[in-house]
């Protein structure tokens, strides 16, 4: 599903190298939480820079500042633009947060594999479990499934964060996802907060309270500690490792399995991942 390779105008006879980015324009910035913004990116001539599949990532570069891999949070069913939800947590992301609509960035991709939305996930009941910014990669799958609603069964979304203010995409969750038949959204925040009448507690314990049956495929994304306890919970509910998907995140520079950084065991997370089933994760050395 990657963009067709183009002959390089600078280097006749060669395809344009995958390390060379395209210029993208930030056409909209939404402040999601105190430290997360969602950037809408389009090609200078309008439209998307490239096609992607849910779960795939792209390298976003601010020249002179740095470049890093981010999951594409918009669904490929969005035909107009792509979005990245980015948490401010380092030099590059600090810079990206200082940008305004109309500013340009460089983008290359898409990289990596994708959630098997057209194969293993098709026809299944789906259980999405996310914590904090980890909703970003799942939102792409969720919206893909919602836009192809007839291909999927019941959809449950368990999403939690530190506080109500830290819930990413809250508007979309409440105004769109919650209103679709067969879709159940279960929100939770870590501690009591004024004005919050929803569930309070960590995602893993909420998951256990919800006690899902195993007639569904789970997609789990979040901080390592949340993943660990949620996975344990799913196992106790009877889920097999083959029914649970996640994404891994390691440092990346090239995005195509050559620079060596995201190598773990015989896999390169940038090209063999980021999406892994937990039985595949179990086969990797414990170094992620």
């Amino acid at each position, binding site marked *: 599903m990657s963009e067709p390779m183009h002959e390089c105008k600078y280097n006749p006879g060669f395809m344009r190298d995958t390390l060379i*980015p395209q210029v993208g324009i930030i056409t909209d910035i939404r402040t999601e939480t105190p430290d997360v913004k969602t950037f809408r990116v389009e090609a200078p001539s309008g439209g998307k820079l490239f096609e992607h599949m849910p779960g795939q990532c792209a390298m976003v570069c601010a020249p002179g500042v740095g470049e890093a891999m981010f999951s594409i949070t918009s669904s490929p069913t969005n035909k107009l633009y792509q979005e990245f939800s980015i948490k401010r947590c380092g030099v590059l992301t600090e810079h990206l947060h200082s940008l305004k609509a109309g500013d340009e960035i460089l983008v290359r991709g898409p990289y990596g594999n994708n959630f098997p939305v057209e194969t293993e996930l098709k026809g299944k009941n789906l259980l999405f479990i996310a914590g904090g910014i980890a909703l970003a990669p799942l939102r792409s799958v969720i919206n893909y499934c919602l836009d192809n609603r007839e291909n999927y069964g019941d959809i449950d979304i368990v999403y939690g964060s530190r506080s109500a203010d830290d819930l990413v995409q809250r508007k979309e969750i409440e105004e769109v996802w919650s209103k679709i038949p067969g879709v159940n959204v279960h929100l939770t925040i870590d501690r009591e907060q004024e004005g919050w009448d929803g569930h309070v507690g960590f995602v893993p314990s909420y998951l256990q309270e919800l006690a899902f049956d195993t007639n569904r495929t789970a997609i789990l994304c979040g*901080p390592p500690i949340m993943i660990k306890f949620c996975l344990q919970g799913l196992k106790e509910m009877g889920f097999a490792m083959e029914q649970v998907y996640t994404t891994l995140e390691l440092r990346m520079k090239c995005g195509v399995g050559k620079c060596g950084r995201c190598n773990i065991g015989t896999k390169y997370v940038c090209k063999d991942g980021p999406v892994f089933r937990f039985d595949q994760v179990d086969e990797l050395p414990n170094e992620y």
Partner: protein
Amino acid sequence: MYKIQKADLPKLYASIAAESDLFLPVKVADQTNFGLYTETADVDIDTLKTVKSAKDIFFPQSETLYKVRRENDNFSIDVEQHRTSPFVVFGIRGCDVRAMTVLDKVFLSEPIDSYYAARRQMGTIVSLACGRPDTSCFCKVFGIDCAEPEGDVVTWLVGKVLYWQPKTKKGEALTEKVASLLEKADEAMVESAKNAIRAIVKKLPYANLSLEKWGAAAADANFDSKLWEEMYKPCLACGTCTFVCPTCQCYDIKDYDTGSSVQRYRCWDSCMYSDFTMMAHGNNRTSQMQRFRQRFMHKLAYFPANNQGMFSCVGCGRCVDKCPSHLNIVKVIKAFEKEGV
């Protein structure tokens, strides 16, 4: 087979260099490395091992990929030109030629690295058999015959004569260009030289290292070995092993702000460094033991698992010679050979 007197080699170099760039071992400040031929270059084909391999010629230590200019708040990207002119590399030893095959597996697998591919396409490799392999050499362990290296042209330095044998179309084309300097030769001298080299190789201290504990199966079997914890401690994390290694290919991509534009350049990096895997949210290899293990597991287990058993080590012995703490891949292989896992 052809030959040329060693004393006439300067003519051969000049003749090749008149038509294309020629890279060959050049001595600078008492260190021999591959460098561009010039009339005043101190060419040194007698030193067995250049300090660094010929890796730089195809995968430079640093190279600009593209420049980004900013005009009126708009970015424009100038992609760096690929190598479009042919060049010759003379005097690469058998281990370093094989190392190119290892690098090919990385850079020429999809998606092809076009910068590397262009150089591979433009380069003609003239290899040089090893007259006197050194005590740190163990190329034989990886099935490399330093008496008969791979390459577009293979050469042997026997006494005062260089023997020359083209092996590929590129090699034949080069031979044709310098034909006036070469004379026909019979193979007898080369055959006896090969036998003499192989006799030395058999007696080298590391000639019989066993790779039995390595390969694809080691990816699982050796990871949790207690040997890593015992072995890594002297490692200073200096990265010397990775920089002199002909097969190490890890790289970084960084920014250089020239004032008028930002150059995005690629440079060698090392899995031995603590920030190699550092992310904003943490680091998946926090100890030197983990980084040490990663380097050897990659060369001896992960790489073979992904490349039909081919190891990402060619036994050049540079890490054996250069590690300030006397740690190296031979010690790792031997430790596993002796103690299992």
